């Protein structure tokens, strides 16, 4: 991963029924798409799996569209609803 090129930061959320290997599957997809996981938190409450990942990539490494396509495909396979959104929407909504 390059420290020079401007990086795009996105937030990936994944929600669904818990089972083995969910975090690994999502992380593997992100790595295969050439993006980096900067931070991750994951909880399971009442059998419900909730994961939030801070993901970034440099221009040229991948695009949001490619990352989303790969993650949604993975989500369909393992039963997770996955969203990929630029971090600015969260910053705008929750911070002045």
């Amino acid at each position, binding site marked *: 991963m390059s420290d020079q090129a401007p990086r795009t930061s996105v937030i990936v959320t994944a929600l669904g029924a818990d089972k083995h290997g969910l975090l690994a599957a999502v992380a593997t997809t992100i790595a295969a798409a050439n993006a980096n996981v900067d931070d991750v938190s994951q909880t399971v409450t009442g059998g419900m799996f909730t994961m939030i990942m801070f993901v970034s990539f440099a221009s040229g490494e991948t695009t949001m569209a490619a990352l989303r396509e790969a993650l949604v495909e993975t989500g369909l396979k393992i039963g997770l609803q996955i*969203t990929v959104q630029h971090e600015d929407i969260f910053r705008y*909504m929750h911070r002045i």
Partner: protein
Amino acid sequence: MVFITNEEILETVRMIQDENLDVRAVTMGISLNDCASRDVGRVCQRVHDKIVARAGRLVSAALEIQEKYGVPIVNRRVSITPIAGVLAAGGPEAFVAVAHALDAAAAEIGIDFVGGFSALVQKGFTARDTALIQAIPQAIAETQRVCSSVNVASTRAGINMDAVTRMADVLVDVSQRTADRDSIGCAKIVIFCNVPEDSPFMAGALHGSGEPEVSINVGISGPGVIRNVVARHPELPFTDLADLIKRTTFKITRVGELVAREAAQMLDAQMGIIDLSLAPSPAIGDSVAEILEAMGLARTGAPGTTAALAMLNDAVKKGGLMATSSTGGLSGAFIPVSEDAGMVRAAAEGVLSIEKLEAMTAVCSLGLDMIVVPGDTTRDALAGTIADVMAIGMINSKTTGARLIPAAGKAAGDWVELGGLFGAAPVMPLSLAGNSAFIARGGRIPAPLQSLNN
């Protein structure tokens, strides 16, 4: 990386995924002043070319923003300089030709509506205004994407009752011309008092005379989000409830601000305004009426409805004001009937009447909006109803509008399908008491005392 809590992230995701949070409209305002000519062919060509040149990338830019932030942008639209001032000569048929040019340009760039087939006649008619108003029925009946609005009243000028009557005639005419489609043409005509010159919402959007060359105006949405916040706190006193609504509206408005900034930059346009309106859609869970019902009213229309709406409308504005410095447009809760599933239900059950809606008009934005009335409603009854709505706007120094649909061949209690975002609605009864002698007076209801505030 900005620190954002997990709860905040999941709240945003829930608002979008489960509560219908979206941006209702990204509307590009385009000045057509430089398209003016006495030659109709030249005007048609210039208007078409300018809209395509400036808004050609509007749809793709909106899609790009939608993908980036994961928030749906429901409508992409264009508002233009009121067309009465752009075509400098020619009769109604010339204006109809311009409407077709607008329709073709809108189709070419893939937008659903272009607004501004408009005139401002609150104080009187120019020859251009007269020709334009005569052209509205044919123009609306023959085009798909053209929206028309006419400002017939203002706090400064009073109510031009001759214009009110002419617009009632227009509604009757359009109702007949589009009778085979439940008179849907009338859904694309708004009659205004104090028309905003920067609204992103159709059918009443136009690009006013004080506006820049090209601007981006954004209409927010999110009734479902507010409804759920209210429903989660069934016993909260109003002071605290208002605070919760403010906090939630802040977040919704920030999304609009983000989208407006980005769209303006991408499209080389000036960022215009964020319209702080809670705009419902016919989808379940996207209803302003359901917010009022979540406050504790069994149905919208129950005693307390006007108070509930006043509180909601005020809290929405206060929350939105903190979120953007670029407020404008209509900025208030919308109460259209056919476009709001909760309003439709209340109207169908007979709990919500046109008279109650008129009272609600006094405390929120727009007015008697998307209300279907019997097809045999007289011109004078329509004119009287329009005048009532204009009076509320004039006296309260606020925008009011009337979008009434006399559905040809339909009687009170019948059902009308308007389709898409226009929704469906029952035909609501209007008072049958006569008012012809009142309407026949004509002239102008003078500007009220409120006009002298200098």
